[in-house]
């Protein structure tokens, strides 16, 4: 079975003890896309990923991985996945090597390929020298790198990464991000949940923002920033003082603050606001000394969307 989309989610819903954790969400992730799933704690990110990876069953709706329904064709769907869960779940009483051999075996990878891939991955993640050590002696960063090796041993078509860099030192974070980029560049679809807006901004082709079980926005990080209403800012200065309240009457301008010799304006539509400002300057015979547009950070947008929803 082939599908243009790596993930297709339709009206997915999950309740726990009468409370809705995921509320009728629908979205798609394209093949080879690096897709970010953002949201505050308890927003429904991990519940969504656990439904997609077959750990828990949805109450309503459906989801498919490369065309395979995650409930009805779970074995086929899970065969295509590599998973790094939120909480480390390598076997601490097994060595790194035996963990990889176990996971490779569960995915039906033959012995030669298991050995070859395990060696290559452990070397790539700088764990090869520790391969025979029990995982209980590993640091958090080492465990996280091992989880990524375990997710990649089957050469998956899609990687599910639940907060993969959370709590790691800068070096480990960078290594994991570089590896994620590399595997994505080689065609692996990546579904990434994160709290870290900068990480999502750096890595993702598209992001979805989920809050209280509902999706608030889906688009590329740049478009999400641009589309956000009320968060676009223009900084302008004129050659003569201007009353900030006059500028509030201009179209698209819904906020104006004096910042030293400049005025910072909150606008809905940057283009319309600039046109209005130019017309205003002409009509008042003012010269514009400087004009800068300031896009909001993804974090600003995230906070706004979370607040609104």
């Amino acid at each position, binding site marked *: 079975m082939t599908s243009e989309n790596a993930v297709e989610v339709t009206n997915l819903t999950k309740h726990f003890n009468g409370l809705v954790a995921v509320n009728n969400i629908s979205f798609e992730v394209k093949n080879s896309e690096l897709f970010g799933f953002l949201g505050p704690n308890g927003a429904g990110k991990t519940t969504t990923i656990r439904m997609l990876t077959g750990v828990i069953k949805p109450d309503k709706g459906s989801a498919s991985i490369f065309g395979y329904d995650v409930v009805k064709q779970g074995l086929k769907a899970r065969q295509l996945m590599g998973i790094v869960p939120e*909480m480390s779940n390598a076997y601490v009483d097994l060595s790194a090597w035996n963990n990889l051999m176990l996971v490779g075996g569960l995915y039906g990878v033959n012995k030669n390929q298991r050995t070859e891939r395990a060696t290559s991955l452990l070397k790539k993640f700088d764990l090869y020298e520790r391969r025979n050590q029990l995982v209980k002696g590993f640091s958090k960063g080492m465990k996280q790198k091992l989880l990524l090796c375990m997710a990649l041993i089957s050469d998956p078509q899609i990687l599910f990464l639940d907060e993969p860099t959370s709590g790691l030192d800068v070096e480990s974070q960078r290594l994991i991000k570089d590896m994620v980029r590399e595997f994505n560049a080689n065609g692996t679809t990546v579904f990434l949940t994160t709290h870290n807006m900068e990480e999502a901004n750096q890595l993702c082709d598209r992001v979805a923002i989920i809050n209280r079980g509902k999706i608030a926005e889906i688009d590329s990080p740049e478009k999400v920033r641009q589309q956000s209403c009320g968060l676009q800012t223009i900084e302008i200065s004129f050659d003569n003082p201007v009353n900030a309240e006059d500028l509030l009457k201009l179209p698209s301008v819904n906020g104006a603050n004096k910042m030293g010799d400049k005025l910072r304006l909150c606008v809905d539509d940057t283009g319309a606001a600039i046109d209005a400002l130019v017309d205003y300057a002409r009509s008042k015979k003012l010269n514009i000394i400087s004009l800068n547009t300031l896009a909001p950070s993804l974090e600003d947008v995230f906070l706004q969307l979370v607040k609104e929803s």
Partner: protein
Amino acid sequence: MGEKVMGKNISWNQFKRSLFIVQKNIHIYYSKGPVIIFGLLMPFFLFLSFYIGRDMPIEALIPGLLGMTAFFTATSTGPAIVPWEARAKTLERLISSPVSLRTIFLGDVISSFLFGLLISVFPVIASLLIGVEIVYPLILVLGVVLSTFCFAAFSILLSAYPPTDNPSTIMMLSSMIKFPLVFISGIFIPLEQLPIWGRTVSSISPLTYFTDLARYAIQGKSYYPFEVNFLVLIAFTIAFLVLAIKIHEHTIQKRL
């Protein structure tokens, strides 16, 4: 998850994958404290307390010793695995892998079975070394293999409810079921010497049929015909497997 695994290839692939679960269980669980205590030490001391000071021919004791060894060892690993894995979150790893629940539990049954079989060999060898003559050796071998598999399936049923992630809870609860079964299964008193109500109660225990079978193989006499013992053990095995899978399918979500 709840899907039916159909087709020869899928079944064979799933069987091969269950053997990786067996390897993992052998590495991790055979040396766990509760497995050693409940599987080896407790039955050993129970047997010693029964044997010391009693004037019985060794041939009469061996079936009981063999029954206890097979029963306690084959049921010691199974109950620990699922709660242990639920607590360590590794159960979630198995469930998100391309293996069915049946494959996971088949792996658990096989690893419990192998542990029981491995340890049960020792009393058989010890019997031969001290000169006990086994009347029907083939029946003894088949009986040990079938009953340890039956007890291993029983151990997976013991872990199915309650759906806890606390291994000691399950180990305690399973001991509360296992110990009474030892006392009603003709291990300490042969079935023919039990009152009618005792024989009726003993018929609900799978251990009864193995002890009787071992007695037939070693002493040449038994309460039930040996064919009946085999058939009942097969029926118990099937019932335990079906029930264990059904209950686990029902409760597994509560462990995740």
